[in-house]
């Protein structure tokens, strides 16, 4: 089976910092991959390379058969790949509904009725149908992140990237976001999730990856990686966060 995300020997430098040092990773359609690792390990950078928010210096990334090279291809990939950010990045000048409508209209050229139906059913799905006319800053962090997920889903992406989606949330709001993500995983969405939420990884992920020093150190199914890792680096990292 052809992988939906193919990452081949990717290198990335930030000035003199070698942030990604030859990463290879193939992700199949429908797989949920959780990436963990210390800060500065390159896990967010890797994620951001997949939709080319970050340019990589060497190597090759192919998403759904489209190589990330020309500007045209990058935009094509971006419409297929949804991204959820640590800091939500909702558009504060637009209502929740308009946040979800904007790209549908501008990029997908959908009609008002079609995009609004889509937006309302997605708000239903993430559990906040009553917040359509609110503005982002009037919502709690957990609600904002769920709107951000709905906004990304409105583009009908084939892949969803999550960059530490719960790190900026108060503890009691984390679960509501993880529930939405778990549902999504069970529906068969291909997901790459940078997160240290072990509960989510166990419940929803097929694969868990530990990154350190810009490289993939170890990969295993989540139960095995978290309970019985082979590498010393993984053990010492897990001992710090568990």
């Amino acid at each position, binding site marked *: 089976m052809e992988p939906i995300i193919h990452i081949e020997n990717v290198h990335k430098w930030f000035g003199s910092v070698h942030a990604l040092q030859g990463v290879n990773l193939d992700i199949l359609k429908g797989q949920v991959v959780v990436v963990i690792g210390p800060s500065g390990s390159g896990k967010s950078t890797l994620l951001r390379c997949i939709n080319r928010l970050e340019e990589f210096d060497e190597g090759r990334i192919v998403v759904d058969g489209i190589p990330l090279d020309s500007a045209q291809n990058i935009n094509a990939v971006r419409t297929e790949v949804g*991204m959820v950010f640590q800091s939500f990045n909702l558009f504060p000048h637009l209502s929740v509904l308009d946040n979800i409508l904007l790209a549908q209209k501008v990029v997908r050229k959908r009609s008002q009725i079609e995009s609004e139906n889509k937006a309302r059913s997605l708000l239903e799905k993430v559990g906040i149908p009553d917040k359509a006319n609110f503005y982002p800053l009037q919502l709690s962090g957990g609600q904002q992140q769920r709107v951000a997920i709905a906004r*990304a889903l409105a583009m009908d992406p084939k892949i969803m990237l999550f960059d530490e989606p719960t790190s900026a949330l108060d503890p009691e709001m984390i679960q509501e976001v993880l529930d939405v993500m778990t549902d999504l995983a069970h529906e068969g969405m291909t997901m790459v999730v940078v997160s240290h939420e072990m509960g989510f990884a166990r419940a929803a992920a097929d694969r868990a990856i530990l990154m350190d020093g810009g490289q993939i150190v170890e990969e295993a199914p989540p139960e095995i990686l978290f309970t019985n890792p082979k590498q010393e680096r993984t053990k010492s990292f897990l001992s710090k966060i568990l």
Partner: protein
Amino acid sequence: MSSSPYPAPTPKPLIGSGKTEKKSRIDPWWGLVAVVVGLILILNFASPDPYNRILVFLKDGIWVTVKITIISFLLVMVLGLLVGLARLSKSTIVRGIATVYVEVIRGIPMMVQIIFWYFASPAIVQEIGVSLNNATLANFRPDGTTMAIFGLTFGYAAYMSEVYRAGIQSISRGQMEAARSLGMTYFQAMRYVILPQAVRVILPPVGNEFITLLKDTALVSAVAVPDMTRRGREFQASTFIIIETWVMVALVYLVMTLLATRLVSWVEKRSKFER
């Protein structure tokens, strides 16, 4: 431009009811406008000679000043945005050209720029026309108002581009990333996400530029444009009424700038974020 792809603002939500009740109170600063207008009217009716004569004589000039201000300002808004975006461009060449433009313009007095546009630039065109044996170019003689608008636009666009640049840079990078990750192009992201937010940030400095521009239109009187200041000088020269003339000119400028200030603060209030 085609209609906006997303609908008019949705109704306001019902939270924060203490804050959402409409303030119908009139801004007290309107009082200052009223005082100055009142003063002009009192002078005009209580002592029509010379004040009414001055006003009648200034009338054409007031119109010229308003016209030059509004046309230049609209052009400055457009050119300033283009230069501001160029200053943020990834391309070194585009950024370099824009930076040189801004640095050169900011280093030359506005008065000199206006004089340059009116006297020197036509002379350059004429010399080129002579050397090319082109009669149209050799007899090139632009009208003063056009060249004054040119000069003010090029001068102020340099300052305005910095205002735009600061406004755009004040919007967090995450906004651009979110828009691009949804598949929007750079210009779509600018138009629908970044600029609508940046405009709210830059309104106060833009209003400031507008008022400064309004006052700097007085400089065009140096190049035979019959604006209000020029008309004042003409009136003084033909009547030798000095104090009253300049009191009236000053008062009319003051009314215009005070009105502009009110306008800016009204726009500012209307464009506050919903929180």
